[in-house]
């Protein structure tokens, strides 16, 4: 019985089976633990920044179509294409992380004090439905001025959100995109301020 074998065959077989099961379980689990989860800041950022960007795409395309100043039209083109591309990247992250485009958490819950930053359901810097209506109906120089004014606010909100995720994540893809958003939009805020000055107008308070 206990002559040469210290453990009966059944015990060895069981240990091997349990070991394999544990390995299988960990192998399935670890890649998923190493990507952002459903309630993570990264997922919240990807979802909310997609929504935030989508309004900038709308504004940019309005500028491309309705802007009078060629600089405004060109900026509108740039903003719409760049931000729509970034929406695609962020939606692809969510797919890659096997997460839904819509989370269970409220909007901006990923950001410290984020929910207080919501105004009537709008994330920081987003134009209100009334302002969007104004922009859709504006013409000529009035359009150019309103576009620059609303876009400065929009970008300030976007920079704020990008800074918040940079504090919360070390995911290389997220860091790269958030850094590009932050730096690109800060640069464009200066351009809009200069355009407003040229047109004899001021940013919104």
């Amino acid at each position, binding site marked *: 019985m206990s002559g040469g074998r210290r453990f009966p065959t059944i015990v060895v077989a069981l240990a091997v089976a349990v070991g394999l099961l544990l390995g299988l379980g960990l192998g399935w*689990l670890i890649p998923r633990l190493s990507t952002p989860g459903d309630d993570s800041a990264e997922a919240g950022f990807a979802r909310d920044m997609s929504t935030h960007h989508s309004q900038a795409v709308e504004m940019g395309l309005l500028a491309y179509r309705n802007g009078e100043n060629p600089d405004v039209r060109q900026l509108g083109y740039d903003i719409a294409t760049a931000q729509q591309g970034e929406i695609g990247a962020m939606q692809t992250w969510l797919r890659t992380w096997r997460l839904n485009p*819509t989370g269970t958490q409220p909007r901006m819950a990923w950001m410290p004090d984020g929910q207080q930053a919501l105004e009537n359901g709008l994330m920081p810097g987003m134009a209100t439905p009334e302002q969007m209506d104004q922009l859709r109906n504006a013409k000529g120089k009035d359009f150019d001025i309103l576009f620059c004014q609303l876009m400065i606010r929009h970008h300030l909100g976007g920079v704020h959100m990008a800074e918040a995720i940079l504090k919360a994540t070390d995911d290389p893809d997220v860091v790269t995109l958030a850094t590009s958003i932050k730096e690109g939009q800060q640069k464009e805020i200066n351009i809009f301020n200069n355009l407003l000055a040229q047109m004899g107008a001021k940013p919104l308070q």
Partner: protein
Amino acid sequence: MSTPQGGGSRRPSVVSTGKKAPGSPAKPSSGAKTASKTAKATAGKGGQRKRIAPVKVSQGRAWGPIALLAAVIVFALAIIGYASWFIYQGTIGWEERADAIPGIANFRKSNPEQVAGREHQAGPLTYPMTPPVGGNHNANWQNCMGDVYTEQIANEHAVHSLEHGAVWLTYRPDLPADQVEQLAAKVRGQEKLMMSPFPGLDKPISLQAWGYQLKVDNASDSRIDEFIRALRVNASLEGDTAVCSGGITVTGSTPRDIGTGG
């Protein structure tokens, strides 16, 4: 325990296997001492028969560590199992998630031909279900950037928005104002959502995504969030990046064809 008693109690087993088997029980104290001395001596000299007893004892005691090991393994499996389940829950496919919502109608499964049409058609169109959840539609889509329409919108535009991945919340105009506001709070500022009143609705609230519909009685019904979570963007026929902006924002039940002031 005193030595004599202990020796005495063990004595029979030792005695039964020892050389002193026929030893008299009349001298318990000295007999025990002798016996134990003999046992130690024989064990020390490598007597096979004497070694069996300690091995048997240790086999019995090993159940402790085995049980502990089993408990640790079960505990580890439980942690891994729970974490896996938790993660799995978050990764269930949207179609499964949608089908799990009680009361949901899935026309993609039940009547695929009713939601197969994707042509652009001008003018008023008729749909087999109310409100419509798919089929041919107007070339203009209704803006669905979290728009809260307070007037009826045209089905022909709304269906086009569904094709782009929007969820359309409709309510019967007699829905109490606080419930309308409860719905509006979900929609406002959220891209790929829109809401509008729908006169003649058979239930107070009806939710639409392309091929899916859910009718509920109350704005606080938890299935509303489940429906939005499962189907917003996911139900799109044009991928995750089809737009909700650039659509028409006018209301009224008559569709506005492109180029006619829509």
